[in-house]
């Protein structure tokens, strides 16, 4: 009595047949594959400047892994494409490179076997679309957006190719903007300082704001005061975008003009912030009502005791204030002689 095999199920029969056809086909023995993987590009680019990006490429901060499968050497060129928000920005094709089967790890394209592009930095910039090229030439930075880098093998012959793709975002958040006090504003009490937050898509980075207040000596510009004078206040505020000048802080002096600004820092991250995180500089004048009584004659109003502060640059310019130099809010200086600069 001979043993009888149980019959194969119809489904299994089809599966075995399909495997057999694949294994016995004439091309299957020659089929090779080239696969690329792009690694090391962070989801948010820590530095949007083109030269820094190029330097990161040159120094191997980003890497490319090439896997060549099969039994025979493969010759392939490479096409590298950079896209922004789905639109091709620039694309370049390398000279063909011969690979033995195996795994290759590139820190730079100069690693062996070298991948050579007949393309200079200027050529790359020239090939960029007009609006992007203008931004790169003006700012030296990549425009904001979602970028895709695709490294695609272009093998000769019947070789399967699998491209490597990496996506990253370029976002260059604005620094804080000063809200109050602003533009030579007169304050009768130590003010509440407020500014706008740095908005980022990073997952909840804690932004630290450095708040600096310096006295502007008549004859100085606010910028010069910040660069040289002793700060009245130099403190760090974590997370908050308001700061109250409470009575325990160093007392502000009546009838003095102060400049203030904020610098945002995302400690522990490489979050890029425009202008190095520094806000504009603006000014306010501290004039408590008790300053009325510093005069020999209390009938004289503060405005009449105003001695014009020499702030031609800051008052005339649009950058700091909309208050004109001869405005009603021109700060007085009854207590300290103006320091003249030529």
């Amino acid at each position: 009595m001979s043993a009888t095999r149980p019959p194969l199920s119809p489904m299994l029969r089809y599966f075995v047949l399909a495997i057999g056809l694949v294994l016995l086909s004439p091309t299957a023995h020659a089929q090779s594959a080239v696969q690329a993987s792009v690694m090391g590009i962070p989801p948010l680019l820590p530095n949007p400047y083109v030269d820094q990006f190029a330097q990161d490429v040159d120094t191997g901060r980003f890497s490319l892994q090439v896997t060549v499968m099969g039994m025979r050497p493969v010759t392939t060129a490479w096409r590298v494409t950079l896209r922004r928000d789905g639109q091709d920005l620039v694309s370049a094709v390398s000279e063909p490179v011969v690979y033995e089967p195996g795994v290759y790890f590139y820190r730079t394209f100069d690693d062996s076997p070298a991948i050579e592009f007949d393309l200079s930095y200027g050529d790359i910039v020239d090939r960029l679309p007009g609006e992007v090229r203008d931004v790169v030439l003006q700012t030296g930075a990549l425009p904001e957006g979602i970028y895709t880098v695709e490294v695609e093998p272009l093998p000769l012959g019947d070789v399967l190719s699998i491209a490597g793709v990496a996506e990253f975002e370029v976002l260059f958040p604005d620094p804080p903007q000063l809200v109050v006090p602003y533009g030579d504003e007169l304050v009768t009490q130590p003010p509440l300082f407020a500014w706008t937050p740095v908005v980022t898509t990073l997952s909840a980075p804690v932004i630290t704001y450095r708040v600096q207040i310096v006295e502007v000596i008549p004859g100085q510009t606010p910028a010069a005061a910040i660069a040289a004078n002793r700060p009245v206040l130099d403190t760090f505020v974590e997370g908050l975008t308001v700061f109250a000048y409470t009575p325990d802080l160093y007392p502000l002096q009546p009838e003095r003009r102060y400049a203030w600004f904020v610098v945002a820092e995302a400690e522990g991250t490489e979050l890029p912030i425009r202008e190095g995180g520094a806000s504009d500089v603006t000014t306010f004048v501290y004039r408590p009502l008790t300053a009325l009584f510093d005069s020999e004659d209390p009938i004289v109003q503060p405005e009449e005791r105003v001695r014009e502060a020499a702030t031609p640059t800051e008052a005339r310019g649009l950058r700091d204030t909309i208050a004109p130099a001869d405005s009603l809010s021109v700060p007085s200086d009854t207590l300290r002689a103006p320091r003249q600069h030529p």
Partner: protein
Amino acid sequence: MPCELKARRDRAGTARWIALLAFVAIFSPEALSQEAPAQAAAAPLGVTGAVGMNYEFNSISGRPARRSGFYGEVFSQLSLDFYGIETELDLVLSTDESRSRQSAKEFGLQGQWGWGEGGLGHLTLDWAPYGFSGITLLGGYVSVAPKGFLLSFAGGRSQRATPGRFSTIGSAGLPVPGALGGATYERWVWSGRLGYGDKERSHVHVVGVYGQDRSSSLDLGPVGGVRPVAVRPAQNLALSPSLGLSLPAGEGRVSAFADGTVSLYTRDTGADKVDLDLGPLTDLFPIRRSTGASFATDARIEGAWPTWGLKAQYERIQPGFSTMGVPYIRDDHQAFVFQPRAQFLERRLGVEGGLRLQKNNLSGTRSSTQRRTEADLRVRYRPVPTFNIAGSIRGQFTSSDPTASSPNSILLERRTNVLVFQLTPTYTRRAGSNTHTFAMAGNFQVLSDDSRAVTQGLRPGIGSTNSALTGTYSIGMASGLQLNVASNLQATQSDMLDLLTLGGTAGGSLPITVRDKKARINATTSLTRTNRTTTFGGTVDEFGFTVLSATLGSRIQLSDVDNLQLKVRTTRTVGGPAPFTEAQLLVEYEWRF
């Protein structure tokens, strides 16, 4: 050896102070006024100005010092006229040598003769609003203007090297100077100006600027394999044409100005060069991968008459614009500004206004576009000589609209509005020999944050309201005695901060005469109570503290030209996270002549 060095430094410091005091003594008006008046009138040397000294002694316990124990400053502002050559000498020397980009010690020597002028020392020149304006150079300048033609040169150090804040981002855990910003290289800036006419009137000027950081001035080499990204040595070349036309119009003047600057700015002089030939400028300014070319411009019309005036201005600063000749310039925006002002009722009513419309994202390549509108109105009215009222209202409306393709549109969208109201009435009444003054100041400020991210709870809002009210009363008597009391209230409410401050101040001043010397003694004491609640990241921090402060001061008129001020202040806080006691003595002496 260190002790020897310290002793040498101390001796050098003492010698410097002796020299300074000698300098003040030599140039004091007493020394200069020893000649007879007639002789002085005929003398070829005329001196006017002021010299003085400020000293500050600080002591604090209970918290780290916020001021150095001793601060000294000597200053002079001298104008010398020597056979028609006018020379101004400004000098400020202080003991404070902070880590700021410019030294707090300043001196300036400026001379004028006929159609020429020049200067040495700390100089702040204003030659071109977007090319060379607002920076302080430690260097020199010379300018000649024969028959209206103008030729000027200036150069000097605009900032010194500072290491910035330290961080431990290096993988080796070593401190990396400047890794978190604040670091600066030593920077040198040179400028030349060629043109015709006065900059504030009709003119044609061209200003060139070249600036460069000294890369060797700051050691920011790789530490632990990480090169800090916060600072790079930079280089700049800029050209600024300027046109102006100013004409009389009745009792006033109408002016039109146009300024522009084209700037080549290399953000990192260590970046690879680009094969681009600028002719003879190639060696001076090689184009690198980090080089950007951009421009800024403005056009404005101004009219000024005795009782009214206006100004309209358009400004455009392209993305990436930067120059070493102007500090703190914000790129990528355009703005339109309109500022009228007028006085009525024989100047008893003054009105000023301002409107500014601003927009960024000029290239249309940013993830969001921000628009900002600012408007303000200020009024001062004095219906009778004894009553004065001043009020103002200011609005600031900011919106940030993400582009359609932005994947983070909710986070990038932003709407903030600010309204600030101020009102200050003052009434003065004479009753017999006494003068009574009543004054109030009210300030109300609303900041609303209507951003979608806030309404959807993705981030805390920055909205707040702040109310401040101050009331004062003062009485001045015939004897010169003046007494005043004031009370103040400030309440702040926001998502992150609640604050209530209530306080009062009482003070007085009295003129006295001691040995023919006039003096005024002032005394003020204040008491304030503050309750503060901070909320951030789910953490609530609540505390209150009381601050008691007292000030006693006197101003002594030593002669017709010099005076001495002394002030002692003590502050004591009770309660709160860091109660402290602080004492401060201020001594100021000034001699004007």
